[in-house]
């Protein structure tokens, strides 16, 4: 591929890196949440394997100047030999994965890309949370991995709520929630299993697109046998719960405070341990007058 057609970083350094030695066969530039990102691959057809892992709502871009450049190197099976047997992923010239399994390389690519977007997107604050829409308002369920937020999101979607995200609540400066509707990552057999991805339609649900005001924030952690008896937090306590899950907390603290203030000043933040998911689903639906 001619060099002029390849994506290139907005900020360029003179130093050469490992990726300069490859012969790039295909590339893509796209925008996602206000960022322009490029990918180049050394094999024809490799992009098709990668596209399903791009952030939801990405759009092709005609400009080749990007803020982040991924380089994906897939070994040539025919060549053999140990040196080239690994799949390599570079972000801005720095290696983020080197593995014999393409699936693992793509996982690392997806994870790095997702984090880059969540941390650096302008005018958006990404809180690690599940989100559904009920009667025109968003239910935000902040929490890290294994806090059970995806199970709760899936249960609410099965009960008729509109799916917004099982990963991030994307907030704007007014505290409105935008969608990040990637396929749900559900762990079928305990937390040690790799999650399986499900399109929301396979759960009988649908995705929302329109930004929503937050109607309720539910902070819960699964505890076997626990009964859902939440306590309403003060605005400040609720804000701290959301901040503890904000990806760009350190990079964009002023934007974070503004967006989170917009949420807690309008919506109650409830916290408690939960046992069975259905208790929380019923509680939420009761509070919102059903679906």
């Amino acid at each position: 591929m001619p060099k002029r057609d390849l994506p290139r970083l907005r900020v360029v350094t003179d130093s050469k890196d490992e990726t300069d030695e490859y012969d790039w066969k295909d590339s893509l530039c796209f925008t996602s949440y206000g960022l322009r990102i490029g990918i180049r691959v050394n094999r024809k057809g490799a992009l098709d394997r990668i596209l399903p892992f791009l952030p939801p709502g990405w759009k092709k871009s005609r400009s080749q100047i990007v803020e982040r450049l991924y380089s994906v190197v897939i070994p040539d099976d025919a060549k053999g030999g140990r040196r080239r047997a690994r799949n390599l992923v570079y972000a801005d010239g720095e290696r983020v994965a080197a593995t014999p399994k393409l699936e693992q390389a793509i996982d690392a690519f997806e994870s790095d890309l997702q984090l880059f977007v969540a941390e650096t997107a302008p005018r958006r604050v990404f809180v690690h949370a599940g989100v559904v829409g009920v009667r025109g308002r968003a239910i935000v369920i902040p929490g890290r991995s294994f806090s059970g937020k995806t199970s709760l999101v899936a249960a609410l979607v099965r009960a008729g709520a509109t799916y917004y995200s099982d990963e991030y609540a994307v907030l704007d400066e007014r505290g409105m929630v935008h969608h990040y509707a990637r396929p749900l990552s559900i762990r079928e057999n305990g937390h040690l299993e790799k999650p399986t991805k499900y399109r929301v339609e396979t759960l009988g649900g649908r995705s929302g697109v329109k930004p929503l005001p937050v109607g309720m924030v539910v902070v819960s952690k699964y505890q076997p046998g626990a009964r859902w008896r939440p306590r309403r937090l003060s605005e400040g306590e609720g804000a701290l719960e959301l901040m503890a899950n904000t990806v760009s907390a350190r990079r964009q603290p002023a934007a974070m405070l503004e967006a989170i203030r917009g949420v807690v000043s309008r919506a109650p933040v409830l916290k408690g341990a939960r046992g069975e998911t259905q208790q929380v689903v019923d509680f939420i639906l009761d509070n919102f007058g059903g679906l």
Partner: protein
Amino acid sequence: MKRQDELLMPEARKEGLIVRELSGEVLVYDRDRSKAHCLNSTAALVWQYCDGKTPVSQIARTIESAINVPVDEEVVWLGVEQLNKSKLLKSTTVPNKMSGLSRRDVMKRIGLAAAVALPVVTSIIAPSAAQAANCLPSGQGCTSSAQCCSQVCSGGMCA
């Protein structure tokens, strides 16, 4: 001769902080320490009146007249102690007899029927981007320890 605690005039730190008011509380983000604090209404008032020129006894009287309820000096000391621990005051040395003051101590001294809520500063360390993101469970492929829930990536697998 004046007592040491009578001479102390705590001063609120302003540099490196982002402050947002909520209804009755104040959120403070400390850029230097990557910490976020929530000050309840009483702690926020104490912080507001720590101007470096006013002794604690006077701060108590100023708050009293601002909110129109009696405020014991010990309540202000408890606030100063908490704000000081949270590094929200300019290098303040709290007198020995006041340092380590707990909510329980103050409750005992002024009684349960205090007219004003005791000052409370709640703090968290702001997560790094990787900490706030999803982590990988044991046995999954990884390239760095930060990706793993266990925080240990060994031989390309999360421990």
